[in-house]
């Protein structure tokens, strides 16, 4: 846990404790399930970061430790997976995915960042392939022309030509229809 608020430790100890905790959480994020391996790796990477810090004390221990961990992860993937990607992001994504799909993080956690993977596992990692969709076979799907008929004509004339005379004529016409209807029903009933 973060002990930076602990008054009994010096500032330097606090930042290294912070680096330790962060490194441990980072390694835990690989869900290795092998606590001893995580502890070993944490201490090893922390020592390497201390060494770097001695050479350049301006760099934050957390950043140094995590940069070291990320660099080693990239190198480990590159050596085990034979992925030749120009981008570290692609290399790491492919490596992590291969690790996940092959379940190597559970079946061989002791090899993580330290040793070459067993050949059988390497083979299964190479086969791990993520296909989100098959090859595209593009079709053109466009709406066919449709004639909306008299309603469109009516709507167009209404929307585009609000002629007061036509409106008044229409109102008079329908009023006439209504009165004829009224007269007829009054007579009929």
């Amino acid at each position, binding site marked *: 846990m973060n002990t930076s608020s602990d008054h009994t430790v010096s500032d330097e100890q606090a930042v290294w404790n912070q680096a330790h905790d962060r490194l441990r959480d*980072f390694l835990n*994020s690989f869900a290795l399930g092998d606590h001893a391996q995580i502890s070993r790796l944490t201490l090893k990477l922390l020592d390497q970061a201390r060494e770097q810090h001695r050479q350049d004390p301006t760099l934050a221990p957390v950043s140094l430790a995590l940069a070291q961990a*990320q660099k080693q992860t990239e190198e480990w993937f590159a050596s085990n997976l034979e992925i030749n990607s120009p981008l570290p992001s692609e290399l790491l*994504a492919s490596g992590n995915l291969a690790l996940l799909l092959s379940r190597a993080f559970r079946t061989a956690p002791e090899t993580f960042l330290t040793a070459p993977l067993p050949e059988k596992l390497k083979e299964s990692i190479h086969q791990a392939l993520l296909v989100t969709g098959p090859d595209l076979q593009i*079709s053109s799907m466009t709406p*066919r022309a449709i004639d909306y008929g008299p309603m469109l004509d009516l*709507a167009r004339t209404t929307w585009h030509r609000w002629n007061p005379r036509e409106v008044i004529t229409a109102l008079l016409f329908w009023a006439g229809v209504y009165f004829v209807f009224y007269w007829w029903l009054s007579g009929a009933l």
Partner: protein
Amino acid sequence: MTTPQPENSAATRRTLFIGGSTLLTVTGFALLLHSYAGQPVFWADYIVIVLFPLLFGQIAIGFLLALFGFYDWLRGGDPLHLMRRPWRKNEESVPLAATAVVIPVFNEEVERVSHGIENMWNSLKKTGQMEHFDFYLCSDSNNPDRWIEEECAWLHLCQKLNAFGKIFYRKRRHAINSKSGNVADFCRRWGKRYRYMVILDADSVMSGPTMVRLVRAMEANPEVGILQTQPAMVLGRSPFRRLLQYSNSVYGKIFSQGCSMVQRSSGSYWGHNAVIRIAPFIEHCDLPMLPVPDPGKRHVLSHDTIEAALMQRAGYEVWVAYDEPDSYEEGPPNMSDMLKRDRRWCAGNLQHFWFLFARGIEMGNRLQIWIGLMAYLCSPIWLIFLIAGSIGSYDRARFLAFSAGPEDLESGQHAEAPILFITTMVLLFLPRVLGIASALPQARKYGGAFHLLLSSVIETAFSVLIAPVLMLFHSFFVLQAILGWQTKWTTQNRADTSLPLLHCLKLYGWQSLLGLGAQLLAWYFLGYNSYWLSLIFIAWVLAPLTAWMTSSRRLGEKLCAWGLFAIPQELEIPEVLEGLATEDGPEQAIVLSPLWPQALLCPYVQAVHLSMVRQRTSSRNGAKPASSLANLRERLIQQGAAALDKREIMRLLWDPETVFWLHKQLWSLPDSELHTSWRSLQSDCGDNDLLRHYLIVEPPQDGPDSL
């Protein structure tokens, strides 16, 4: 014995149907006119007279459909139906063709959707025909948590079922044209690979044998463009959902059979649980824009009816396979969710008005569009009818009290009014009786005859209580649509969650006040003549209580224990529905949030996300991001995940370089430069919900050869 000719038979049925509904409407109208004979007629009465045929016509159509359906049930099904043609004799020999099962999703409950896919996969596998089917999960989700969860769930499914290359995931960056756009996007990208697609909703499930049989029906009948099943509503636990699924099961089937008898090859398409022939769908069924001035309102919201009309315009048939088993969906869990859905459907159906007079549309489709329009327009018409009827009644009472002579009082006594009332009641309730009669031989599947009858009585009472409430809401929705207020396509809630009483009081309280006020006014002006309106007012007054009680999960469990509203699929759960009920599956779904930050922290979640996003976007190869994106990155680091809104998060997640950059920064920056929330997320990263639920799985038991 001569075999009936399909065309002649169809013409006879339609003549009987149209003739019958016209005759009933004219009879009702004549009875109404006679009931006015010798009486003074006021202006409000003319409104009643004009509106009456529209409303009575709707009731007559419903009655006749039920009558036709009941007749069809009595004779054991339509011998001319597509699913009873000679091809069924050699069904097994009909070859299958490449078929895609397309499931469009929009912020749905991911675990429920993936469980449904798993069940369908297993069911299809048992048929031995899996090689012909692929699954596509087509997402339009704009909730970042749902998106990341969908990606992980997809990988989980592929791993668990050993289905890489058979189950695919596609996320659209821009959800243009909602669900119809999502399906069209699938068609444009992969439509050519398949001859058919089975369209499902997020809550739909179909068994493998049903899918295989439907595809065979399409293959044996190349003139068919769409084959729609009648999905049964299932898995309801709340009283509301149980009532819906019960009425769907008992009464729905005879209505569907009746519709099918009349419609035949110009049937309906409901947008899901259907098989579609892809090539003509691509060629003819892309939705045209509506000819309205506002470009934002040109998209057809409710696509299915129009797609069916366009398919038939292209010369293909559309059939409803009303008695195909094992096709399921879920209904809305409570009244509020149903109203949300109805609001969308109302806006969509009213848009169909444009197609009512469009050239090239078949008469059967015009009828469907008309019935769809009237389904919602009837509400405001009923409301106006009731108000006008009350005013007319008041005017008449005043006339009789103050101005009428003895001869007027005598002339007011007519036998036609009670006859009209009784006729209307018969037309309204006889379909229910017919539905119960058709269910009685299978009463055991509904928990026995006593439970079936008692459930039907309670369901009828419930429908009497809910109809006036819906009338007011639907009238409001129609007004909204006419005034052009925008309706958004929202996610349908499918969890049986109880509604809080406060929510019910807020949403339905105005109806209670309206009901009380209207009852007082009616008593004051109409006196005892207002008795026929009281049922409506009572329903309004009770609306909050009705909504609250029918959403109660606890009451739902009790009804279940008492054996009320049981349906066959509840008493004997079909294999394809196993584990989908909320209490034994998705209820335990991930509830913690937010999930999306794990796409930045967890190496595996990030790897899955990047591998999908990278297939869709070109890499900037370390180039400097746009200043707005850089600003978002900084805010996220310094202010935490909660500082960004949904749109901003989606923008970050769509950029693979940003996702990777943030991963590095969030892990390597000192605590002093990070928002405090990131530390707890980092600590939980190794045991996050996505890892536990989806990514750390046991290897599949079957090899790839087992497909």
